């Protein structure tokens, strides 16, 4: 690997010097912020009395909704979330009051003295119940192309099925945290674990009833986020700000793990009904799918998540007649939210399940059925939403991975193994991914930057993206260093601060590097133009005319290719500009071009491009204990022209394992009252080190530059999450082997050890 570039914070991570919000040494008068949350899932807060509680020693303030100076509102798209309950209680863990105290014990003492009268009502917890009661959060949205009804009538076969998937807790290692420090006049500074500082800033300004210019949100790094800090960091930041504003002292709130798991939103559980029509040759002619999402108590990002489920309902397959219905249902649990993949995994899960059933029905190899239905290059390449699939890479990926993984001969060996083993069964599965890059909502696809060059030749880059482990700052540093032709150590990427780059979008939808990288490049380009303009004049002597296109930035130097004598250190050039009173600071901006979408017709061009990949996994299942081992996983993934291969591979490996967790061990249950039972790592199990594949090959697709993106690269964050599905379907194959593949196992996501043995029990006893 030529000059491998490692994570910019790697050295700080391993020495413990990387500062996360809870590590900031706070002023000695900093107070402990504490939330009193609802113990019931639905009810009415009839009255409350805080006076005794306020007398508790060590307590500085207790606030109810009445003490909010501005709006009691923190819904981001739809205004349906209160900061503190006024009357209606909607889930266990909803904020009722907030306390600022010297320490946690004082706050707990105060909490015990709060008097309140609550009337408990019957909550709706399960998705099924919500659907039965017709509790839609918003109208059903339909995306359609072709005509399924006429086509179903003509198909050789039709399969109908109902499947479901569970939620998923983000389990970022760093729980939600915020430190709010009041300033002069109405100013306030907030260190927040947010993926979306501009939105956090806006909501705080509205809550405090001050201008956004008085609110500065700063984020250096997050200890993981995965979508869980896109909207879910807001409440903690707002609560801390309200308390800091009231007490005029710094206030920190950090959620304890159990609290975090109980009160923040998760990936949406879906209940999916589908009907698929196909012919004897395995070609899919029509597909109807109905996505029902358990949205929790409020809208949050549910409608956007359904939009992504719809636009990924067909995955990598051309389906001429398709109808996708999608509904968000209200329940009395925390509002479900963004999580890596953002509805895409659920959408793709359904069509992959359908493909597997089609293969079983026809007695064909599933991989063959999938291959036959892939989008073609020149025909059959229009998505259900009207976007043309360009630069289709699925065939290149297919050819290579099928060969590298030895898929067909391994499949034979597996069948042999299954014949000879009674209690161990193996399975192998292949799943492709096509993932659309860009926010589904066009206006969000904008980014800003501010690049400062100092007179010693060092560069400071500010941009709107958040570093949460994905290596964004490393990549942005590389982009800017390359533009100026200077060493990486001359470039620093600053903490993300709303006062340097305003009105930014969330770091989400995998687009962090695509957009902020382009914005940083745009600023650098402006500065380079200034260098060139100045140097062209500066280097043009009487007879010699320096040409701007001959000026290059390389090896920490600025060089005129037209004249050997014109060759100076970058720092010297910087000083020449400075002395000539030329600004060495520039703002950059980027908007992803050519995006549009009509919400009425559900047609348009929502995605800048697609990311492609295939994974193949083989598992071995102990059919007595339900335990599976991943024997081998191969992933071939498209990151365009990767300009940091190690970081991209790390993203793919991590996303895959996260996907495996969603598909296998990560299970969430609520009791009838709305208590989350798996509210700590004691009972909520993300993959550990012994859960990874014994053989784990991740490769990037070579020679695949992407047109019109930063350094011809592609986004990487979310798409590889989908690869985890290959493990799920491999488990399903191993399960089906119990009954010699006569029947499709009744096994949903997550396929826990328990769900697996129940499915096996059903197959064996022909239930």
């Amino acid at each position: 690997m030529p000059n491998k570039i490692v994570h910019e914070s790697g050295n700080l991570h391993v020495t413990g010097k990387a500062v996360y919000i809870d590590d900031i040494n706070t002023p000695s008068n900093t107070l402990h912020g504490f939330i009193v949350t609802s113990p019931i899932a639905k009810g009415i807060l009839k009255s409350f009395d805080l006076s005794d509680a306020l007398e508790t020693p060590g307590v500085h303030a207790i606030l109810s909704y009445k003490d909010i100076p501005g709006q009691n509102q923190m819904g981001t798209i739809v205004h349906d979330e209160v900061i503190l309950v006024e009357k209606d209680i909607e889930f266990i863990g909803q904020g009722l009051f907030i306390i600022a105290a010297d320490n946690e014990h004082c706050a707990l003492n105060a909490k015990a003295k709060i008097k309140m009268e609550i009337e408990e009502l019957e909550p709706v917890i399960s998705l099924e119940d919500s659907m039965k009661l017709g509790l839609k959060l918003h109208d059903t949205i339909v995306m359609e192309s072709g005509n399924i009804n006429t086509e179903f009538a003509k198909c050789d076969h039709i399969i109908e099925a109902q499947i479901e998937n569970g939620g998923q807790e983000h389990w970022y290692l760093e729980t939600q945290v915020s430190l709010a420090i009041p300033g002069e006049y109405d100013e306030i500074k907030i260190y927040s674990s947010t993926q979306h500082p501009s939105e956090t800033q806006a909501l705080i300004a509205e809550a405090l009833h001050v201008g956004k210019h008085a609110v500065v949100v700063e984020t250096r790094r997050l200890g993981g986020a995965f979508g869980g800090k896109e909207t879910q960091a807001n409440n903690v930041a707002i609560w801390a700000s309200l308390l800091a504003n009231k007490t005029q002292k710094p206030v920190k709130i950090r959620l304890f793990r159990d609290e975090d798991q109980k009160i923040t939103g998760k990936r949406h559980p879906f209940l999916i009904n589908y009907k698929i029509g196909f012919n004897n040759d395995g070609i899919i002619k029509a597909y109807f799918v109905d996505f029902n999402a358990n949205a929790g108590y409020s809208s949050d990002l549910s409608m956007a998540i359904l939009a992504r489920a719809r636009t990924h309902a067909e995955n990598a397959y051309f389906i001429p007649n398709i109808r996708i219905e999608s509904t968000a249902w209200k329940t009395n649990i925390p509002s479900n939210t963004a999580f890596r993949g953002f509805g895409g995994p659920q959408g793709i899960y359904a069509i992959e399940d359908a493909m597997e059933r089609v293969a079983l029905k026809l007695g064909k190899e599933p991989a063959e059925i999938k291959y036959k239905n892939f989008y073609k290059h020149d025909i059959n390449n229009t998505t259900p939403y009207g976007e043309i699939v360009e630069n289709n890479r699925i065939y290149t990926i297919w050819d290579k991975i099928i060969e590298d993984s030895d898929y067909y001969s391994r499949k034979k060996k597996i069948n042999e193994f299954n014949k000879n083993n009674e209690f161990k069964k193996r399975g192998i599965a292949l799943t492709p991914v096509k993932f659309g890059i860009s926010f589904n909502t066009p206006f969000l696809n904008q980014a800003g930057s501010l690049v400062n060059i100092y007179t010693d030749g060092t560069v400071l880059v500010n941009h709107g993206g958040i570093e949460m482990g994905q290596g964004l700052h490393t990549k942005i540093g590389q982009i800017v260093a390359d533009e100026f032709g200077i060493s990486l150590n001359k470039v620093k990427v600053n903490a993300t601060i709303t006062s340097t780059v305003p009105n930014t979008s969330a770091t989400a939808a995998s687009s962090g590097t695509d957009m902020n990288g382009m914005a940083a490049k745009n600023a650098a380009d402006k500065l380079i133009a200034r260098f060139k303009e100045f140097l062209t004049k500066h280097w043009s002597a009487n007879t010699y005319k320096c040409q701007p296109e001959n000026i290059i930035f390389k090896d920490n130097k600025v060089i005129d290719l037209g004249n050997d004598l014109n060759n100076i250190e970058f720092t010297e050039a910087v000083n020449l500009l400075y002395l000539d009173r030329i600004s060495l600071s520039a703002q950059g901006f980027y908007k992803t071009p050519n995006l549009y979408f009509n919400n009425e017709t559900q047609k348009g061009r929502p995605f800048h491009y697609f990311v492609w990949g295939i994974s193949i996994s083989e598992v071995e299942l102990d059919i007595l204990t339900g335990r599976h081992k991943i024997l081998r996983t191969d992933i071939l993934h498209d990151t365009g022209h990767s300009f940091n291969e190690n970081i991209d591979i790390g993203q793919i490996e991590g996303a895959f394992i996260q996907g495996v967790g969603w598909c296998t061990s990560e299970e969430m249950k609520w009791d009838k009252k709305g208590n989350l039972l798996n509210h700590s790592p004691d009972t909520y199990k993300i993959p550990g080190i012994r859960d990874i594949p014994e053989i784990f090959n991740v490769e990037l697709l070579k020679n695949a530059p992407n047109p019109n993106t930063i350094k011809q690269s592609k986004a990487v964050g979310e798409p590889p999450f989908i690869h985890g599905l290959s493990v799920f379907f491999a488990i399903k194959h191993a399960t089906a082997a119990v009954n010699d593949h006569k029947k499709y196992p009744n096994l949903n996501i997550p396929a826990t050890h328990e769900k697996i043995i129940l499915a096996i029990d059903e197959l064996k006893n022909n239930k």
Partner: protein
Amino acid sequence: MNSTRNYIEFVLDNKIQKIEWNGTHQLSPTTTLLQYLRSLENHKGTKEGCGEGDCGACTVVVAELENEKLVYKAVNSCLIFLPQVHGKQIITVENLAKENTLHPIQSAMVELDASQCGFCTPGFAMSMFALYKASGVTNESEILDAFAGNLCRCTGYKSILNAAHKALGSKTKDQFSEIENDIKQKLRNIQHKNGLFTTELQQYYAPKSLTEALTIKKNNNKITVIGGASDVALRVTKKKEIIPQILDLSHISELNFINKTSQGFEIGSATTLQQLKEAVKSDLPAFDNILSVFGSKQIRQVATLGGNIGSASPIGDTLPLLMAYKAIVTVKNLSEEREFPLTEFITGYRQTQLKEDELITKIFIPIPDSSVHIDIQKISKRVDLDISTVCGVLRLELESDNTIKNINLYYGGMSAVTKGAENTEKFLLSKKWSKETLTEAMPFIEKDFTPIADARSEAEGRMIFAKNLLLKFWENFQK
């Protein structure tokens, strides 16, 4: 009193640190090591990811003198009360690099992309460092075992494993080797007297002798006893309890021993599970098996055998196995000693025969005759660091014609207490040891147990697991 101390001393940053409880002190004696470290300006590298021993972000290394050797152990600082570190050296992630030179495990982690968000990284670094300091070559399974207690949500672990292989493949002397003699001397100088740490709300006793401990227990019937505190500390970190009185047995050497005789192993109640695992590996292989999937290495370094029995939890993993080995528990008060087979010692859900003035002192595990076959199977959602959904143990003796001479089946997770599957045993006795008989025996499990549904599993699932274990035992027996 001269013979008690109201302070603790330990080495941190290569210096002796002293914390005194003299009435004015801020820290509670049940302040965890993690809370203490994070309260210091220069030790915020150690992270809290869960506060319950389940993520490893808080991992630090505790070095202690054992037979004049410094032994480095990775532990979860979130579950250790400050007085437990008296007389030991604490090494945190900030201590690894020498000025600006990274420790070999650190440079391997940086070079091989072992961190993304970095929040789990200090914990992994410390687990890796403890392995680095262990003597000899480290093999793959030891690496996996050491990291089973560390969760990472970003990397997918492969890069961390790569870094471990690189750093552990060629160990050399590091800065800690250089100062080892000096540290040993410092630790030797720390006095080991009875400890008592008192605040307005709490009394924390750390006696040195069993008699002293029994006296304290007699005088304070309601006192909370701790062995390693891996269970009790959760009351502080999760339930936010202020435990009024604590009796810490971890400094009593009389309770920390393993004696092997021709009959079996005599094990002091305060012996840690990691010590036990290493000591009984070859004689009691089933013990090694279960301890390999008991909590994590960090937990086993502090959790004691007495604590697992004292918890009397239906999902305590050593219990069904100890029952199968026909282990004897010895309890003691100031005047007498009593012995119980473990099956009789446990009387109900988290209830035992232990009287208010008694402590568990030792456990005797007979080494069974070579004709006895013992197997344990733990079923859990995740292999590592997970509590049993069901845990089953078989003790089997066959006649020469393969009929079952003696059989015991003990199950954890299937009822309020760990207990035998009597109906199933009765059915199987004197029958042929075969797949068919075991299949026929499966319905009897339903007569023995009525399991519950909880966050881990539904009742139906538990029942199928428990039945399947019969075939699993058969499958393993064939090997």
